[in-house]
């Protein structure tokens, strides 16, 4: 334990991370037919991926254990464990298409941001969807032993057909990573341009959080593209050096996954859970503000937030036995501050307190004369 405490690591997430990593290793072993289909040239990538998996998982489980996160995670687990999950899953698929793949919500933040982000995100997804299976030995391309002009694709060790090298499918298979790299490069350049114009981002962005990840992605993509350039245009000159460089950048990126901005890839699916939580809350109904009576807070969130306040040691934020601060809508909370200040000043809210407003019967004609 003293080793863990010196690293300041949490034991439970550590265990869970170890388990997650073990699961991945199992899947690799299984998918690569006990390592038979692993490409020795990709061993460095493989080790880095497993290490990154451990890091990401550790961070993920630490994150989930935060009381506020757990509030939602527990809700999602319950939902997934219930039989209604059958109705839930297709809906979730649709939502994932919108929120994870199309990312329309980013378009509403800023259309320029969406353009840059979509190119980067899709480029990465495309790249990952090819490279991880390759590294894990889940898929493999090999020249067809019988026909030198054809390539054979192997999935989980099973042959799944072959295609001609000089076909569209062949072109795609060889250049899919170039395409991914081009998308990422374009996206990163657009992102840099946008960040250079946006006063707000210029003020709030941080090198380690916002700029470095873009640089890392650029490095990975550019070294990757250079491999193709070397092979096609330079007759393989410097290919070896470039391959090492590329491997280095990729390993760096993988190892930084748990620490930097890219961790949001693991977090983002939580948005799906929140969507369902909100829908359940709407079904249950909204509760009224105890000051102004307007409906505002969803019943499930009101309950869970009170429990969360208790866990966080904020339980004294209540005004009486029956009125928690959570029972006031945001507008009434804002009015409350001014009300409190006003009562300190005493009576300033009623300018008529000193002088009663004279009320004449309104239909009584008023005569104006210069002499009484």
């Amino acid at each position: 334990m003293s080793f863990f405490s010196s690293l300041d690591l949490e034991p439970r997430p550590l265990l869970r991370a170890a388990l997650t990593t073990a699961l991945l290793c199992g899947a690799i072993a299984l998918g690569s037919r006990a390592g038979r289909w692993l490409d020795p040239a990709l061993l460095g990538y493989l080790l880095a991926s497993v290490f990154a998996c451990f890091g990401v998982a550790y961070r993920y489980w630490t994150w989930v254990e935060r009381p506020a996160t757990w509030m939602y995670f527990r809700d999602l687990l319950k939902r997934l464990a219930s039989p209604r999950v059958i109705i839930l899953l297709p809906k979730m698929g649709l939502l994932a298409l919108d929120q994870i793949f199309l990312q329309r919500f980013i378009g509403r933040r800023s259309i320029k941001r969406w353009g840059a982000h979509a190119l980067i995100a899709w480029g990465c997804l495309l790249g990952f969807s090819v490279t991880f299976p390759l590294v894990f030995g889940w898929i493999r391309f090999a020249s067809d032993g019988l026909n030198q002009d054809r390539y054979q694709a192997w999935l989980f060790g099973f042959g799944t057909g072959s295609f001609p090298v000089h076909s569209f499918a062949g072109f795609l298979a060889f250049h899919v990573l170039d395409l991914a790299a081009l998308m990422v490069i374009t996206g990163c350049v657009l992102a840099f341009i946008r960040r250079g114009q946006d006063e707000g981002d210029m003020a709030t962005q941080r090198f380690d959080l916002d700029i470095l990840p873009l640089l890392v992605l650029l490095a990975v993509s550019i070294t990757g593209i250079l491999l193709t350039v070397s092979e096609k245009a330079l007759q393989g000159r410097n290919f070896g050096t470039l391959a090492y460089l590329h491997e280095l950048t990729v390993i760096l990126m993988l190892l930084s996954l748990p620490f930097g901005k890219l961790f949001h890839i693991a977090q983002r699916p939580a948005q799906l859970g929140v969507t369902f939580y909100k829908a359940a809350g709407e079904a249950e109904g909204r509760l009224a503000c105890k000051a102004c009576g307007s409906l505002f807070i969803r019943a499930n969130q009101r309950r869970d937030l009170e429990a969360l306040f208790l866990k966080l040691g904020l339980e004294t934020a209540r005004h009486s036995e029956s009125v928690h601060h959570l029972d006031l809508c945001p507008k009434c909370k804002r009015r409350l501050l001014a009300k409190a200040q006003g009562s300190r000043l005493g009576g300033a809210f009623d300018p008529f307190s000193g002088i009663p407003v004279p009320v004449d019967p309104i239909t009584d004609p008023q005569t104006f004369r210069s002499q009484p």
Partner: protein
Amino acid sequence: MSATPKSLAELRDLYGPHLNLAPPGGWDADLEPDKLVKTHCCFCGQQCGIQLKVKDNHVVGFEPWTDFPFNEGKLCPKGVKRYLQGNHPDRLTSALMRTEHGFAEVDWEAAMAHTVNEIERIQAQYGKDAFAMLSGVSLTNEKSYLAGKFARLGLGTKNLDYNGRLCMVSAGVGNKKAFGVDRAANAWVDIVGADVIWVTGANVAECAPITTDYIWRARDQGAKLIVVDPRITPLARTADLVLPLKPGSDCALTNGVLHLLHKWDFIDWKFINAHTTGIEAAIEEVRDCTPEWTSRLTGLPVAAIEKAARMWGEASTSFLLHARGIEHQSKGVENVLGCINMVLATGRIGRPNCGYATITGQGNGQGGREHGHKCDQLPGNRDIENPEHRKYICEVWNCTDEELPHKGLTAQEIMNAIHAGEIKGLLSLCFNPLVSLPDTEFTREALNKLEFYVNLDFFLSETAQHADVVLPAALHEEDEGTTTSTEGRVIRINKAVEPPGDARPDWEILVEIAQRLGKEKWFGHFTSPEAIFNELRVASKGGTADYFGITYQKIEQNMGVFWPCPSLDHPGTPRLFEGGKFFHPDGKAKFIPTSWRPPMEVVDDEFPVWLTTGRVVFQYLSGTQTRRIGFLVEQCPHPYLEIHPRLAAAHGIEEGDAVEITSRRGALVLPARLVKTIRPDTVFIPYHWPGELSANRLTARHLDPLSKIPEFKVSCVRIAKTAKDRFPAELAELQRMAFEARTDQADLPEQVF
């Protein structure tokens, strides 16, 4: 002849008001400016300093100008969003001429030639004075000066007046009578050191928002605040004493206070004997104005009147501010003089922390009223009927006395004469009388009777819709010049961008018309605003409003120069009357007795409720500009009826109900807004809207006999609840626009708490 050429709905589709919601290219565009242009806000007499962000000849935003001493970066919402009047879809970019099918865009030459032909035809047929000119005080000093010279020498008509006639003209008359000069007596810094601040008929928080901070700074040092208003305005809410008097009873209050000041011996006899005349008559006039008498007329408790007089009397320094509330009355001048008498009686003027001022409402409300822009005035605030004054101006202008017309009609009187068929042609700029003059339907009838009407504007205002020719003019940020702020500070308006299309500055248009009318010799040398200003300096020399020592360069170096500034080495005069020197020939101020009389219209059984009108902070005057800016419309899209819940209950009216308000002039239907912050015998409507929503459908053409200001602030109406389907269609349209202004902006929360 000059009825609108198409239905109002069709005109609205074509020419707006539409809303401008965001800077050019949207919020996500790269708005990094090429330059910042230091200029001023166009939306009220305070003339706050502001820097406009300019990119590619477009104004794309603003940056507060924190170094400008008056406002130090502070702005009201109109100032914040003023930049959105540029790049506007409604902007007129070519000349329009009326055809059978509506307005047609025509080239400049055709519009100009037709205009000049019609002016010549009307003047040949009916006489020079049958062609009138109406102008406005949102124009720069240069344009105000030019308008005066253009009407007199270019058109040769005596009938020139301006919309300052609807603004502070009562204050001007009162100030000239009492002090011999018409300017705020102090720069605003004197407010900060005052012991007591008396604000009457001025909704400072909404109509002069930046002044609020001066008052609060005084209060931080212990000053007491007295606010006189039938409504509890945002500033009044925290005041030390609120006097919610009956509309139209202001003069009774000041008389009552003067009575008590005399009775309790708060009179500064030393000052009065040395520096004033006429105190005896003024005191004699208020001999019977006891607190009981005052209470009966104003509806205020005796105790409140006595408390006010005591607070005012006991103070050692003070500042009195008033505005349209007391000036927009058939006895506006007397109300102003009543205030001045209070100030003079206590001798608290012309020294530090002691002051008096009217808060001008329009952009150049101060400067615009000094340069011969009024029917009875020549530059330097000279009198058009004074032979010596005429002689001096004839020399400056190089004309003969015969060539210089005499006094003409005032603004409302010009409209009356048009209605009566005596005036046949009209040129107007910077004026939207169809919204701003009282008795809207009368104004509409009058406009329809014109044989020829040419209007200069940047948007097709409601009045411009009646024109035969509309010449596209430049916006505030598309021209340069000077204005004079409410403090009397002459400041520089800098050009930020070029006008689009055929649009050009008003001064260029007027000079061209004058040249085409064959008046080259008087106008040919006006090749820039500075050239006009340099003639203005000479023309004002020796007048009370003496600008001779002010140059563009000097203004920029000093962040403004206060007039009078008679010589180039003169530093300007932030505080008038120092050492008790007033501007009358004897150097003394005059007490002028103010005898009480009721408003022209008094509540009776038929029309039992007082109506008062006014502004909201989100709109400017007739709204031609502000009703086209998304944010401002979103905050206040349409007029409403402010009514006390007690009065509402008596008529079964609830919040949001449709209320029909009827006066002797007309009626309108507006939604009720129930507030306990207005006298229960009074209702209030903001006046910025046209047509079926125009508060001025209810107001009367009663004028002050001296200042000829209409009595906007006191009318009598009856109210009745009516069906909501009687709301004017324009109201629903404005609500829709305001809603779209909200939702068209970047996402707003689904759940609006």
